[in-house]
């Protein structure tokens, strides 16, 4: 009995040492912290037409994970941005959308549990208008649309794994599509449903060292 405990203790020490070794092998271990970003507008409604149809500018909002900031539209043709939002559509700086090394895939699971991007993961790139790295459509990508209440709800347990324009990695979880990060009630007023929509709240973790671990 005592022997068994001893050997377990030894085993634990050895394995801990092993883990420690592998860790010290990688040169720069930056602690990656999750950052929460609130109310990123994504082509919000600016008015109503004479027929009562909502009017928007039809423009993307570009975002850089490295800078943790919105990138001006004038830089849309650059590699300064990683992802961009327009209504429910999210594009990556890849394929038909941009000149960067971007890409993405949707991971089903928990944000915190995704510590390493699985080696067999396939990053998709944008191929407008038929397919996007972040799949469009209700229930297919990151959100669900309820046709009865007209409410968009981010799907729980979805992590968007992004390859940035410069080929680094980030993970993000969208928590709300409405201003203030609120959850709209089915009975919310039409005005609220119209004007509070198209504001993203999400958290993300960006790994600047180019590895696939967070």
């Amino acid at each position: 009995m005592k022997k068994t405990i001893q050997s377990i203790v030894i085993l634990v020490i050895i394995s801990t040492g092993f883990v420690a070794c592998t860790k010290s092998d990688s040169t720069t271990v930056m602690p990656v912290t999750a950052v929460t970003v609130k109310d990123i507008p994504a082509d919000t409604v600016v008015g109503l037409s004479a027929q009562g149809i909502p009017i928007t500018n039809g423009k993307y909002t570009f975002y850089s994970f490295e800078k943790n900031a919105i990138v001006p539209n004038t830089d849309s043709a650059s590699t300064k941005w990683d992802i961009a939002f327009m209504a429910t559509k999210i594009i990556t700086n890849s394929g038909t959308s941009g000149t960067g090394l971007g890409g993405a895939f949707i991971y089903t699971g928990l944000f915190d549990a995704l510590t390493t991007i699985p080696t067999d993961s396939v990053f998709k790139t944008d191929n407008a208008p038929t397919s996007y790295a972040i799949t469009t459509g209700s229930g297919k990508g990151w959100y669900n649309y309820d046709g009865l209440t007209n409410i968009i709800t981010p799907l729980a347990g979805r992590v968007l794994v992004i390859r940035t324009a410069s080929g680094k990695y980030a993970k993000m979880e969208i928590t709300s599509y409405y201003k203030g990060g609120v959850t709209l009630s089915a009975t919310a007023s039409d005005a609220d449903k119209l004007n509070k929509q198209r504001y993203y709240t999400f958290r993300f973790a960006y790994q600047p060292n180019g590895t696939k671990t967070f």
Partner: protein
Amino acid sequence: MKKWLIFILISPVGLLAQAGLKRDSLLMQGDTVVVTANRSERKLGNITVPITIVNAKLIQQSGSLRLTDILKEQPGLNMTSGFGAGVQLQGLNPDYTIILINGEPLVGRTAGVLDLNRIALGNIKKIEIVKGPSSSLYGSEAMAGVINIITESDANIPLQASLRYGTYETFDASLNNAIATKSVFYQGFYNYYSTNGYSIRPNSNSRVTTPIGRYTLNQQLKYKLTENTNIAIGLRLTDEKVTNDISVSNGGNTINSTGKEHNTDQNINVYLNHRFNNSLKTSFRTYYTNYNAKQDLNTISGVPYYDLLNHLFKRVENQTDWNVNKQVNLIFGAGSVWEGVKSTRYDSEKVRKNNITQYAFTQVEWNPLQKLILIGGIRYDKNESFASAFSPKLSTLIKISQQQKIKFSIGQGFKAPDFRQMYLDFTNAAAGGYSVFGTAQAQQVIGQLSSLGQIGTLYDSYYQLKTLKPEYSTGMHLSWEYEPSLNSFLSVQLFRNDISNLIQVQQVGAYVSGAQIFSYLNVGRAFTQGIELEIKQKLSSSFTVSSAYQYLETGDKDQIAQIKAGKVYTRDANGYSKLLALSDYVGLPNNNKHKAQLKINYYAKHGFFANFRMLYRSAWAVNNTNGNEVYDKGDEFAKGYISLHTSLGKDYQNGFSWQAGCDNISNYIDPANLPNLPGRTFYATIKYQIFHKQ
């Protein structure tokens, strides 16, 4: 006269089955005749399945005008809103309960819901509610149970006129009369109901209940051709005109529409009944019904909106009741249904979609001991458009003692796919351009759209589309009834329903524009289970208290499997995802766990009565807000509530009576989730029997 009445009322079979309770007990009178449970007249004391009987007196004293009003006060039933007022029975949606008038089905459902406000109650003798799959006798739709509305069929009713007026300019006028002579029975009933509707949503011109004017005409004639043969003709017409002023929300923007809606419902039946001898009788029945709903609206932008639904249903049927010997009763029958629907929501409103169903059924009732009844039945429905269905059922009644009974039943029910699920061809231009196509043509229509380059993506589900199969349920009911004295009644009932092959709307693809395309697939598996308790106690000669409670659990079996497999997520207080625990799963939407009611009735000797009714419904999930496709504790719920109702009145010796009441005394409203519950309403009724015999 008497003899003829007996022929109509009590079958020879029923007379022989008198072994049961003869006592005139509290509210469950053992001698009350029930027709729905066995498709043949039986005494309540010998019924083997769970049944609730609501008699005319209760309907009248509750101040109920429409079928909805009285059903919502019954144990185990919930009213739903959306596409009219439907009834949910033991947790199963309105689609799964068949609604009969004198044994003949009503048609004209919208999205599976039959609007029970269509049915006036002024000439109703009683309502029989059978819980549990009853397809072995009634075929499709009798999956959760059967609600049979029975009008007077034998007794004289002195000509009576009643007038009622109440809140929201609700007006109701009725004329009712029945004459029974030696060879003729006639009943005539006329009703006019109108309401100015109401809006419980602040700052909205859209009324939840729109202004309605409804006529109901009901005529019945029975004529005795010979001593043993009679012919019966029934006619029922309802005609309702609805003034619409509705708001449709389009991408958050509101469009007003005004116009008229005109709905008519015609029911005609002709029966020929013959009795060969004391133990054998047969009945030929033909039934025709036609429901027509027409909506003609003008939107504020001048674009007209026209919607038509026409449902025609014709049936020929024969049923024979044979009392083989003292222990064995047999019923058997066969029939054929021709059904057709045309609608603007199908590919062409001019072309009627048809379906023919042929069926045969039999039921054996075996009474081996005085204390034991065993019933076995089976029905076969052969359907032209869908798979055929076998519906077996077994039930038993054990009379443990004079005071105690045990009932057990197990049966299979089914619901054939409806016309909408096969033929719908609907694109909602107002709400983002999504489309729903019925399975009969989804692949063809989508194929055409695809060749026009309009289809963006097709999902796996598109390739799984095929001819729909009926939905099935297996139901089990076990109940114990206890009557310790003539003044007390107690019953406990356990139930479980397992449903498979559920037909659900599924997205099968998307247009190039991204708008969704839906169709129907047999995909779901679900269950409902629970307990029903009922207690009735006569406190004194004038006070009676009755109460009921239902505990209900529901669930989607596939979702539960997913949750158990750790594949379903929900969100925590920060909005971050976490795994959903099974204990946080709440089951099917619009189902509340607890429902309770308490009723106190007071009767005085000189014709005065008063009652007080309290109904409670616990919270129910209404909207999925936390990003999974299951309903859990983190979703949006409608609040539980209590509604209080009272009514009092007096019947005078000279044929005059009055009644006044108040519904929803505490003025509880929830415009979003309970659009059918207006705020506090008052009403007053006067009634006069013109040829009243003292």
